[in-house]
């Protein structure tokens, strides 16, 4: 069975766009892990809540961009609150306890969404409706814009961490929590803020994804799983690695769905994860430790 070249090219574009949204989710996850050693099982639920909050805000304000900002701010606050209440008491305990606690939080958030927004999917109206020709397809500009926006947000995160006072605080707190405190850095506050930032990136992905795939209360687990795969394949806590892995995984899934059903295409990314763990357990895009 030969696959036409144009289909492959379309899937390449699709894979890149999906990869950037996934990269945005994974960057937040990897930020939270890299800085606090917290494995956030509720991350996908934050994507989902971001999507729903965006949908509600869009209905009220009529502006997609306002809705995006509203969702990002709301979920950032929620994230900081979750960190301060549920996760702060677990600092210094077995890392397994944070997996368990965030798993419990994910149950609550998911059912809360079901209660608040019901079981049906919400599709957000895209802010721009233009299209361009990609072979026989009319390809929406919005998809391209999504990829660019995701890249922009990740770039902003990088600059924020690299330069500026809070970036230094965050990196100092990551490397040596105790010494950072001795230097007067309010580490618990830094942690809450970092969790808030990670959560807000998840929320942004949820809103951006809204016009593409719709928002449902069950979408969180899928995002959590895929983000985890990406973060492990890219190397835990490695921002650049997660971005490359997001694109790689999304491309592989896009190509796989040319031959099998999308449900089965997911297995391709599972296989990548398993192979990575077998041969490069520290991640594909990390220099081999000497």
């Amino acid at each position: 069975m030969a696959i036409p070249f144009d289909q492959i090219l379309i899937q390449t574009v699709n894979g890149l766009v999906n990869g950037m949204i996934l990269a945005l989710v994974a960057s937040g996850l990897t930020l939270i892990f890299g800085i606090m050693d917290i494995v956030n099982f509720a991350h996908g639920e934050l994507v989902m809540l971001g999507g729903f909050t965006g949908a509600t805000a869009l209905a009220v304000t009529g502006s997609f961009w306002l809705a995006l900002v509203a969702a990002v701010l709301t979920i950032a606050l929620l994230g900081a609150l979750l960190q301060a209440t549920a996760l702060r008491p677990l600092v210094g305990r077995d890392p397994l306890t944070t997996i368990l606690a965030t798993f419990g939080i994910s149950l609550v958030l998911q059912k809360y969404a079901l209660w608040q927004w019901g079981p049906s999917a919400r599709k957000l109206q895209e802010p721009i409706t233009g299209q361009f020709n990609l072979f026989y397809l009319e390809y929406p500009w919005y998809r391209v814009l999504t990829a660019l926006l995701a890249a922009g947000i990740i770039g902003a995160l990088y600059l924020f961490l690299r330069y500026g006072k809070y970036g230094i605080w965050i990196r100092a707190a990551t490397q040596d929590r105790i010494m950072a405190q001795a230097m007067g850095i309010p580490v618990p506050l830094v942690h809450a803020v970092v969790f808030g930032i990670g959560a807000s990136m998840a929320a942004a992905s949820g809103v951006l994804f809204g016009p593409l795939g719709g928002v449902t209360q069950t979408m969180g687990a899928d995002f959590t799983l895929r983000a985890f795969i990406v973060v492990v394949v890219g190397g835990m806590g490695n921002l650049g690695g997660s971005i490359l892995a997001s694109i790689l995984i999304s491309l592989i899934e896009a190509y796989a769905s040319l031959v099998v059903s999308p449900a089965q295409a997911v297995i391709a990314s599972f296989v990548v994860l398993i192979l990575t763990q077998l041969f490069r357990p520290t991640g594909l895009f990390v220099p081999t430790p000497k």
Partner: protein
Amino acid sequence: MLALENVHTYYGKSHILHGVSIEVGPGEVVGLLGRNGVGKSTTLKTIMGLVRPSGGSVRFEGRDIAGMAPHRPAHLGIAYVPEERRIFRLLSVLENLRTGLDRPGVSESRKNELLENAYEHFPVLRDRRNQAGGTLSGGEQQMLAIARAMMLDPKIILLDEPTEGLMPRMVSQIREIIHVLHRGGVAILLVEQNVPLTLEVSSRVYIMEKGVVRHHGPTADLRANQAVIHQYLGV
């Protein structure tokens, strides 16, 4: 200025400090001597709020600081140079220094002044300001740790074995900076194994053994009393 009174500290179930009382006046250089594992470092960590005392009081300028959040002592003017130096290895030298500068209420000009001051005393840090902290040599890391503490504009610096493992040339540089800080009116609580250096720079000395202060008095008395030094320090 800084006063510990009958402080008890535990690590888990092991009782480390059994009622330690120490006092440091404004601008005073005080030595804290003792063999390994007698609780000197724990005393400093307790002052910094990094371990919580289970009994007794730690007061700084009259305020009880024992129960404070661990980042508060730095804001009150207590700086800490830990034994392991604890440089932020992946941060550049300048970023290491900035961890202490970017506090609320410090003007840009004051920040520059503090930085220039540190660079003047440790020119090597200026040369390497964009290099990662982890790439510095042991001696340079010690300079950086002290310079970083100076960024807090502290009233007192807690120095934990600053000369440990350093070459003699570096040791004299440390001696030099202690004098500079002293002249600048900064109090110092110096934990050391290096007895001659401690006796030279300190005005008073405490000697600890098994979690308690066994001896304390003016340095001059101790110099005259070699028996005490021999008994507790074995030199």
